């Protein structure tokens, strides 16, 4: 794996499982009193965030620092995009700096793919447009394994704005690769225009779809969708597709609830559910750091098992 642009770059089940196994090692590192190892000492990781993201950025930065990598921020404002700055110019600059990896977030789908074509550095997609957010999917897989074990044959409902969601696309790829049965639940306006080639089933009825689910994965409902006539109102959205306390009470007793954050409390997910016993949202965030350590290590460190020197405290 030279870059991590989408889940397919991991090369299927074995590649995903490799990262999840590596993550175990880095969870252990993260639990140490001094959670810092020399694995990536002398390597430089640059942040190229064209879109605001305090959470993902913080998670990656923590991961890099725990691996002793040097980090540098290529601060790109929205303004440089608006000025029509060529993506290639930015890639040229990164190349000239000689960084080892660049973590890219961009509001345009495919932007990290374009950059990967122009640089020698490893490119990690930290979310591109509506397309992919592979490290989110990996941390979701890791969290799922912690809570429900093997995903084979497990029923996962993903509910919400699938159409505009990079999380949904990555999760569908990763969950189904690991053998889960995924059902997408949304009004037709919030589904992609075509689901050709997607190994999923689709429903417009959350109650029916979630009744026997092992997992309900709730997507963030962005308020700007209101202006695009995709749903009549947030109130109606919550009533039909929100995970309310009443709806959560009807789930299977062992079902868990996930969300990529940040939660619009009271819109797609009731606060009581978000903070309740079914919710594994905090675990998702916590696991994010270790998963991103595993990804950076795999891209910049070594193939195979973790060298003991690398994670020697």
């Amino acid at each position, binding site marked *: 794996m030279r870059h991590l642009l989408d889940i397919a770059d991991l090369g299927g089940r074995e590649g995903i499982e490799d990262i999840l196994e590596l993550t175990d090692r880095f969870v252990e590192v993260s639990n140490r009193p001094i959670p810092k190892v020399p694995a990536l000492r002398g390597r430089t990781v640059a942040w190229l965030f064209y879109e605001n993201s305090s959470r993902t950025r913080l998670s990656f930065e923590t991961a890099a620092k725990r691996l002793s990598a040097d980090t540098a921020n290529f601060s790109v404002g929205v303004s440089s*995009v608006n000025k*029509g700055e*060529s*993506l*290639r*110019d930015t890639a040229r600059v990164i190349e000239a700096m000689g960084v080892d990896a660049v973590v890219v977030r*961009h509001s*345009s*789908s*495919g*932007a990290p*793919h*374009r950059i990967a074509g122009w640089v020698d550095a490893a490119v990690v997609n930290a979310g*591109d*447009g*509506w*397309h*992919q957010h592979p490290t989110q999917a990996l941390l979701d897989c890791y969290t799922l394994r912690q809570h429900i074990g093997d995903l084979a044959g497990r029923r996962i409902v993903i509910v919400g704005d699938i159409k505009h969601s*990079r999380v949904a*696309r990555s999760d569908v790829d990763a969950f189904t690769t690991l053998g889960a049965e995924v059902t997408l639940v949304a009004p037709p306006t919030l589904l*992609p*225009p*075509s*689901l*050709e*080639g*997607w190994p999923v089933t689709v429903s417009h009825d959350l109650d029916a779809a979630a009744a026997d689910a092992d997992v309900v994965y709730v997507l963030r409902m962005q308020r700007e969708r209101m202006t695009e006539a995709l749903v009549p109102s947030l109130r109606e959205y919550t009533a039909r597709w929100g995970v309310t306390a009443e709806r959560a009470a009807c789930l299977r007793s062992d079902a868990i609830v996930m969300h990529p954050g940040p939660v619009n409390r009271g819109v797609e997910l009731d606060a009581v559910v978000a903070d309740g016993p079914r919710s594994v949202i905090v675990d998702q965030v916590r696991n994010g750091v270790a998963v991103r350590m595993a990804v950076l290590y795999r891209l910049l460190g070594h193939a195979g098992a973790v060298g003991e020197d690398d994670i020697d405290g």
Partner: protein
Amino acid sequence: MAERREVTYPLVIAGGEIVDANGRRRADVGIGADGRIAAVGDALVADRSLDATGCVVLPGLVDLHSHLREPGGEDAETILSGGRCAARGGFTGIVAMPNTSPAVDSAAVVRQVLDAGREAPCEVTTAAAITVGRAGEALAPMGELADLGVRLFTDDGSGVQDGRLMRRALEYGRGLGVTLAQHCEDAALAAGGHLHEGEWSARLGIAGQPAEAEELMVQRDLALARLTGACMHFQHLSTARSVAMVRAAKAEGLDVTAEATPHHLVLTHACCAGYDPVFKVNPPLRTDADVAALRAGLLDGTIDVVATDHAPHPAQAKERPFDQAPPGMLGLEVALAVVHTELGADLGFDGIVRAMSVRPARIAGMADQGRPVDVGEVANLCVFDPALTWEVSADDTASRSRNNPWAGRTLTGRVRHTIFAGNPVVEDGSLA
């Protein structure tokens, strides 16, 4: 015969096989000092001879749809550089699109484009905008522009959204004897879309524009053509249902014509899989079924014309993410080779001549283009070697731009010589 052998022609195209509206025949073509064809026959004696052995000699090609970017977009292309691309592609006549800056919507800009066109190694005429500034609000001075020789009016780049205004334009244009051409796209339905809405837009996570955005305007304009009795040309059709509607309209007897581009006849939205904006174009590349329908439409005559929609963009414009890059791709230099490679077996050179020379010349009102290779005609010729295979390189171009979606492809057949008004403007593949 003995007498004719004594005549020496300034230029002879020797050893080729002529294919024109009158069929196929082996003959040399002798060209006189006046730039007209002086003789068609065997073993003509020449001051200067261009070898056409193994080649077909076609009437020079005519492109109904070239974006030459001048005035205003000279970093992408000029009338001269675009004209040089045309010559390299075997075109001896091209119609410039009016979506320049300023738009070709006034006598001054028409004159500017036509004047600049006189320096080009092919005949350059221009289409003019239907509405002032292509803003879709008020009619451009169509009569004044028609008096300057404009035969084709279009707001290309967008369609005229207001049905009432389009009706008036068609009615008014009918009185002038001009043709209105439409880029069919319902702006509201297409808004924000960067590729065909479907399997690939869904996978890639980029907003698409549905086929129906085109089809709704095709449907409306066919109704308006029926209402007004006007002559109407449909630009770069891209969907199966558009083809079906135009087919039905022709059967009904409406005075309509249609074009398709080489890229819509060959490429699909799957080309966008790598996020390379060189494959971003408007209308967008669509599905295999649409490609098949366009090809069937070309073969049965529903699609009258193959037009390039040559749309240069400077490198930096295409070095942005897919959704931020402008739509458009180069086409003039490779159009004939692409059509020959992909459709030659079905279309034949007689079909190619019809779709890329005779009919576009007629629609564009270019009297000296698309004519048979006969004595007395202006010598506008394309000499094409159908056997040569070559790999397209984006850098091997006369264009100021490099957005060539065919780069890296191996094509069969290449333009060897182009003769414009009796002058060899391209010889053995190189601009004179």
